């Protein structure tokens, strides 16, 4: 399995030692039209569960927490001009940032797709 989910509605896709992070389709639907995404800078050190990005919608400004610790490797700068990508393509083209993992064991605490779907059903 290479994709994991959090209870805060982030997804992380693992390739090698790097994880790509976004918010789930469920999360974007709850937020409504997304108007702005504040992205982290490359090289920034982050710890699991800390807020590293902010997604502004017409309803709210919501923090996005990194599911893993490590170093920010990249951010999706396409969102600066097209934040609506998070609405239209939340789980692929609407990714937010990439993290080089410092502790891959942190992934063990995350959910797989089936577990996340069950979790969302229970909300």
């Amino acid at each position, binding site marked *: 399995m290479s994709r994991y989910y959090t209870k805060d509605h982030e997804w992380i896709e693992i390739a090698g030692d790097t994880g790509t992070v976004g918010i789930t389709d469920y999360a974007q639907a709850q937020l409504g039209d997304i108007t702005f995404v504040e992205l982290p800078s490359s090289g920034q050190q982050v710890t699991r569960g800390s807020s590293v990005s902010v997604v*502004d919608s017409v309803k709210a400004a919501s923090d996005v927490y990194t599911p893993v610790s490590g170093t920010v490797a990249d951010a999706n700068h396409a969102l600066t001009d097209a934040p609506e990508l998070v609405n239209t393509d939340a789980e692929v083209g609407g990714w937010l940032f990439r993290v080089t993992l410092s502790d891959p064991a942190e992934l063990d605490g995350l959910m797989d797709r089936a577990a996340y779907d069950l979790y969302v059903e229970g909300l």
Partner: protein
Amino acid sequence: MRYLPLTDTDRSEMLAVIGASSVDELFADVPAEARLAGPIAGLPPHASEMAVERHMAALAAKNLSAGVAPFFLGAGAYRHHIPASVDHLIQRGEFLTAYTPYQPEIAQGTLQVLFEFQTQVARLFGTDVANASMYDGSTACWEAILMAGRVTKRGKTVIAGGLHPHYLATVRTMARFTGDVLDTRLPVLSPEPDDAELIAAIDGETACVVVQYPDILGRIPDLAAIAKAAHAKGALLVAVVTEPVALGLIEAPGNLGADIVVGEGQSLGVGLNFGGPYLGLFGCREKFLRQMPGRLCGQTLDADGRRGFVLTLSTREQHIRREKATSNICTNSGLCALAFTIHMTLLGGEGLTRLARLNHARAQSMVSRLTQIPGVTCLNEAWFNEATLILPGDAREAVHALAERGILGGVSLGRLYPDAPELHRGLLVTATETTTDEDIEALAEGLAAVFAGEPA
């Protein structure tokens, strides 16, 4: 809001409903030792309205107030003429509110005024955007420091010696709770501010440099040089303007490289009011818009394509974003902003420049007359409407002696900096369009008489 008094019958009916026998019984849970027994010590017993008015009028008559004496005080609060139309218009029922309304979009007129206010402030400051106002200049100054920390993710602030000491006191109070590091210095009595020393203090940890323009001593710092040095270290320049009328003559801080410009708007449309309520002004570069504190009005089109106004980007604000908000201010100084906007609209750009020229001309007359007094010199190389005189002795004593002669002769540096004796011969004097030749002559003769030791 109406005042609805209670009758004894109302009161006893309400008490009967909740099963209490007296109002005092409602306070039974307050421990006896925490309750007040009898009248408050030192306060006189109640009196009739007429007696209170008579008493207050007698107290007020003891004041030597700005409107009745030759008046040269400034230092962050400026006496300017306010056209009668400003007071008339702000008191219209459609406008008369202290804040943005709770249901803002229903008050389109109020939002339109705030939108125009923002436009005026942004043009005055040379910034891309401005917010719908803050409490006053000093709190706007602190908010700018907080904002610079959010933008740069750094925690150190370098503050020029020319920042008003009361603004610095506000910043110190707030920084105690946030842990921001403040690198401060006292002003030095030199003809020009020591920009080189300030520039040398900027390092790679610095979030922003805070520079007042003109500074507390009336001098004009070289903002462009400071901005360049700050940007080279990745820091922001915060410019603070306590006398916005000056910007009718000197270059807007935003055009000189300031990233955030804050100020006190009292000078335009708001009276001295014993120090408040005043009007915080706040503008910045567009790229920092989402880190800007406070309310922001936007212009849009409604469903039928008609022009309309909204409060925009509210998701940054406390009522939505809670503790992650850009600021705990969730309001603005609505009525003072309205007065500012009306006064600015009456003046127009050209009128503001003429007003500024007039202020400067009055200050030139003031300084050239006062420096004819033996022993009195002017510190400043340049000034707008306020300059620092150096007296032969402690300026505090001179100010008291002048007040006894019915002259409000300026703000002594000893009052602003009681712990810095090297500044105590300094006297800040201000002239505005309200200052007459007779006022200047009265101050000059009064000062000469004080130094000559003549009795009042």
